[in-house]
């Protein structure tokens, strides 16, 4: 006696968290049943495999019907088809949009295109995340990206409103969108030591300090793009390295702050050019940002030109912090330097990024 049709519909939609997780992970009904069996439900509840199968199928059907709504979470709140208590709705959305950091790390800075989606097989193999789950997460990234791409105002806030995500998750999505938008290179070998969290933190600092929204909430440009005028202005900072006087002065001021390490033997020695080299690197990174191609290399440059030299010089994170603080503050005393505000805005994000990235 086989059951052709078998459904259970509650007035309040039943959501089994365990089954939801299995569904999100992309398991088929059969796999899900097998996993639940291994979880020992049978023994606990004294039920049969057939019951478990029927239950799993019911939940899967519900989730499939819910998925359409999960693509636009505010609709989940408004729809009449499923009566789900708000905290359960929140859970559904949160879990649906939660992602594997390993996967997100792989995709950071990549174009969220069909081509990338085709490469997910490899990504899945590398990260150990199921391919179906990879696709779903990729689609989530893409959906969020598309939704906020054109919107003005703080990225994270927009995402939070459109997808009803918790603030932390919305900020992570903002980072993903930011990276996808600027297409930063993150895949290079020398960047491998950086985690998704590092990049997300960098993106947040960059958006916080550099984007238009940071200055004027009613900004005209979307937050995901770095404002053109700002990037243009950054060229002006080159004066700090091109003008010999200013460079020297800057160096002197920085070292003159009485920072022991900067005056120490390592400093200037193994850095090969010392503060001037570091300074040139820091300023040049900013100057290059007007060209899309150079923007991509932003993190590569930071690692190659700043972090690696410092590391080989055995600076502690504390040393770096000290240096950056003084280095940022120094131009204040430079005569004829008119870009103090710009400099500080620029350095605020750079410092935050460097400090976050400065680890093994």
């Amino acid at each position, binding site marked *: 006696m086989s059951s052709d049709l078998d459904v259970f519909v509650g007035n309040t939609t*039943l959501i089994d968290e365990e089954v939801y997780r299995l569904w999100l992970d992309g398991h088929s009904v059969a796999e899900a049943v097998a996993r639940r069996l291994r979880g020992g439900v049978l023994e606990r509840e004294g039920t049969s495999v057939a019951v478990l199968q029927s239950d799993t199928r019911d939940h899967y059907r519900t989730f499939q019907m819910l998925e359409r709504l999960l693509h636009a979470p505010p609709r989940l709140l408004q729809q009449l088809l*499923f009566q789900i*208590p*708000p*905290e359960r709705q929140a859970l559904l959305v949160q879990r649906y949009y939660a992602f594997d950091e390993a996967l997100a790390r792989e995709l950071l800075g990549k174009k969220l295109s069909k081509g990338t989606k085709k490469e997910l097989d490899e990504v899945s193999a590398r990260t150990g995340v199921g391919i179906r789950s990879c696709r779903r997460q990729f689609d989530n990234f893409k959906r969020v990206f598309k939704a906020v791409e*054109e919107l003005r105002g703080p990225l994270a806030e927009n995402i939070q409103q459109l997808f009803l995500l918790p603030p932390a998750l919305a900020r992570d999505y903002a980072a993903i969108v930011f990276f996808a938008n600027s297409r930063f290179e993150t895949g290079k070998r020398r960047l491998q030591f950086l985690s998704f969290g590092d990049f997300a933190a960098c993106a947040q600092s960059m958006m916080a300090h550099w984007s238009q929204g940071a200055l004027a909430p009613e900004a005209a440009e979307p937050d995901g793009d770095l404002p053109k005028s700002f990037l243009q202005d950054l060229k002006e900072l080159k004066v700090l390295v091109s003008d010999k006087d200013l460079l020297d002065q800057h160096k002197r001021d920085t070292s003159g702050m009485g920072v022991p390490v900067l005056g120490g033997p390592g400093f200037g020695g193994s850095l090969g050019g010392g503060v001037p080299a570091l300074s040139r690197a820091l300023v040049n990174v900013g100057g290059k940002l007007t060209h899309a191609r150079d923007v991509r290399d932003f993190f590569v440059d930071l690692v190659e030109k700043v972090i690696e030299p410092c590391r080989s010089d055995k600076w502690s994170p504390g040393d770096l912090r000290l240096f950056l603080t003084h280095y940022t503050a120094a131009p204040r005393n430079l005569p004829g330097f008119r870009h103090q505000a710009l400099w500080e805005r620029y350095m605020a994000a750079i410092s935050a990024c460097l400090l976050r990235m400065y680890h093994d």
Partner: protein
Amino acid sequence: MPGKLKVKIVAGRHLPVMDRASDLTDAFVEVKFGNTTFKTDVYPKSLNPQWNSEWFKFEVDDEELQDEPLQITVLDHDTYSANDAIGKVYIDIDPLLYSEAATVISGWFPIYDTIHGIRGEINVVVKVDLFNDLNRFRQSSCGVKFFCTTSIPKCYRAVVIHGFVEELVVNEDPEYQWIDRIRTPRASNEARQRLISLMSGELQRKIGLKVLEMRGNAVVGYLQCFDLEGESGLVVRAIGTACTLDKLSNTSAFLPACNSPSKEMKEIPFNEDPNPNTYSSGPSTPLKNQTYSFSPSKSYSRQSSSSDTDLSLTPKTGMGSGSAGKEGGPFKTLLRQQTQSALEQREFPFFTLTTFPPGFLLHVGGVVSARSVKLLDRIHNPDEPETRDAWWAEIRQEIKSHAKALGCHAVVGYSESTSICEEVCILSASGTAAVLNPRFLQDGTMEGCLEQRIEEASPPGCGFCHIPYDELNMPFPAHLTYCYNCRKQKVPDVLFTTIDLPVEAIVVGKGCLIQARLCRLKKKAQAEANATSISNLLPFMEYEVHTQLMNKLKLRGMNALFGLRIQITVGENMLMGLASATGVYLAALPTPGGIQIAGKTPNDGTYEQHISHMQKKINDTIAKNKELYEINPPELPEEIIGSPIPEPRQRSRLLRSQSESSDEVTELDLSHGKKDAFVLEIDDTDAMEDVHSLLTDVPPPSGFYSCNTEIMPGINNWTPEIQMFTAVRVSRLSNINPTNQTLNKNFNDLCENLLKSLYFKLRSMVPCCLCHVNFTVALPEDELVQIAVTAVAITYDKNQALQANKAPTEKSQQRASTDNEEQLQFPLELSSDPLSSQPFSPAKEALEGASSHTGIPAAQRDRCNSWIELIKLKAQTIRRGSIKTTTSLEKASPLAEGYLRHRSVPSGTNSTVSVVKMTPLSFLPGAKITKYLGIINMFFIRETTSLREEGGVSGFLHAFIAEVFAMVRAHVAALGGNAVVSYIMKQCVFMENPNKNQAQCLINVSGDAVIFVRESELEVLPAPPPAAAAQPAGSAGDVTT
């Protein structure tokens, strides 16, 4: 009373994309009532149109108002081709026609299409202005209230219970009209939906007229069903109980929650509120509401009513009041005469109620039922109702005569049903024969009842068990004993009824769901041969169903069945019987004997061994069940220790023995010691199978109880957490050569597995009870069996049970004693029973709320307010950092506009969906129903031609049932309600054709829309405004967009 119907179309949302090119829709709305149609403007290029139309006004007479549904069609405007329909909304405006029900219907309704399901939502406001008109010859019955609830609705008092009303209307089924060959499935489905809606309206109006004629003002226990007869037509029929109800004005007064609906009635001070609807002042009128044209020349319809009713009753009813109580006897006769006179005026003294006001039900005789097999293709004049009327009249006559045979004048818990397969139709009716107190049945008898009080000699807890028939002239052989409660009157050894357990009944332990399941093969045959073979099988099925019930009852150590419902379904090549009931141990009835197995061949040693082994197993099961259901009859000495107030019990016993004559006492003892065993004879393998199947019924997992009645005997401390659900299964009987045994086993497994899977699904609600478990069996095709179950799971508080015991018992005792003063000598007995029904204490709720760690989070379990609050909270978190209101993104055009923050779209508090609870019960635990808003009676058809794409049959039906729930909730919310009580899925007809990738399903549901208030809130808010909270996603949200 002509009236003016006013409709305003406010807005739409989430419409489907109708124009692939632009990914948008140019929507407009047609509003149709009767023959008048209005249209809104086209709202171009939007999936969230804001029509904000003018008020469309329809001037119509009230007959039309009652019959016609308001029909709203959403269309996509197309310049070059025909406009495409997006979907429809049918709104029954009946609730607006009673003075006390809803005043406005306003809210978001799902736009429904029979092919695509729900496609977006539409916000509509509907109002009715009625003009008074005192036309005496009116055809309408506006103002008569309808309730599906089978008890006196909570905020009303029954002044008079008039009795049975029925009506039946017939029409041609649009699906079978010639035009169906050329029209689209959508058009055909819509024609059907509209027709049924119209017929329901007409039916309700006609019944209303009968009620007015009887001087009633309401119909309670209204049950409407439709029969798809196929070629011969579409029948919509309804039965109900006409009443004169009086609204209790101080409904907001806080009352301790009583899990029993009718008990509450009693406590509320009877406020003779001069309600305009009270018709009670008039003199009693003879009722002649039914005029049947019996056409005696029924030779064309082969008919055989199974007259085995007595048989099916045989062992379960006891009798004989005649000699019983010495004082009681003469009074009883007097009483009976009075009742008789009140009831004899009625053609059918039937009541569809299952729960009654205290004192209404005097004695219960037993179940009466009648069935009859008819051939639909022999109906002389299929378009007229006469033939069907005559069929039903015949069956009702039979029921009436059965009741008479049991010494009863009335039938309560009465219901009717049909099962149709091709041209054969089985009509069934069943009920419980009873003797009623006449004081509710006549107008102006309230004074008379004072005198009668003296005669109501039967104690409240056991009176209904006392036999109504003459002991010396018993209608069937039965074993009688003196009542174990009052020791004065005779009671039967077993009692079967179709009603709910009376509130005052004294029950030992808990109850449980008992089912008898049976399949019988039948040869495929045509017409009369078919009908003959079916009618020949019916008595055997009834007998076997009865035997099974009896065995299972004994196996659980119980002695009474309530809510018995026997469903016989006819298919092409088999008959299926499914009986469900709730077994209990009534303290008034004797302890059931065990089951003894007797073999036919006593010489065979191994056989003997086998039998003794079986016997042991059975005995073990009985013992286990007794423990599981806590059946410890108070007669056992150890029970006295366990009971909270042992001492008074002894005293009461003393008291009793004083008042009794000595021979009665000896006789008592005799019957006490004699535990007659039920003997099962095993004479062949069949019987062996039967015994085996007896033992295969698995008890529910721990923490679960189940029953098919309103309340679970023995559990009183319900929490407000409820979960109503519908489960449907269709199974294929794969046997090539099926035998009755294999079929029985398959069917049994199917039911058991279904129950098992329900327990598993609801495991997070433990400890909980499945109440009102309602199984419906259908045989849609040759080898397919379809089972649909609707029930509600209610969590109860395990720990509170014991503590709640003491205080409330006193209360219930008081309640009982104020009712019948002369019972004062027995109150101790009442309180000594720890398991008699008690109200649960409101304090418990707080306690329970604090420690809510059941799987489902606390907030879910109650009030819609908390839901809304949560959403508010959420909205606030979202808003943080931005001063502007929250927005919701409708994927479409707004994106391009940018400035997300400047748009304030509904998504804040006012656009959250209000919670609507649904329950098949007439009450909500821990809540008080403050207003009945009207009946919900909806019929939907869903069809698909892309079955695979919609997830196969399961995906299709899952979505459809969810849609039906959603539409019911939306209608209730639009009426301003927050719950549906007495919800029932009356029909679920599913047909599939996998080869063509098609399926079709029809669902008919009904219930009462209500407003409820949590008892905990009642204390705080004397005038609760839940209606406001329940007002759906309002118009406020739209305006801002």
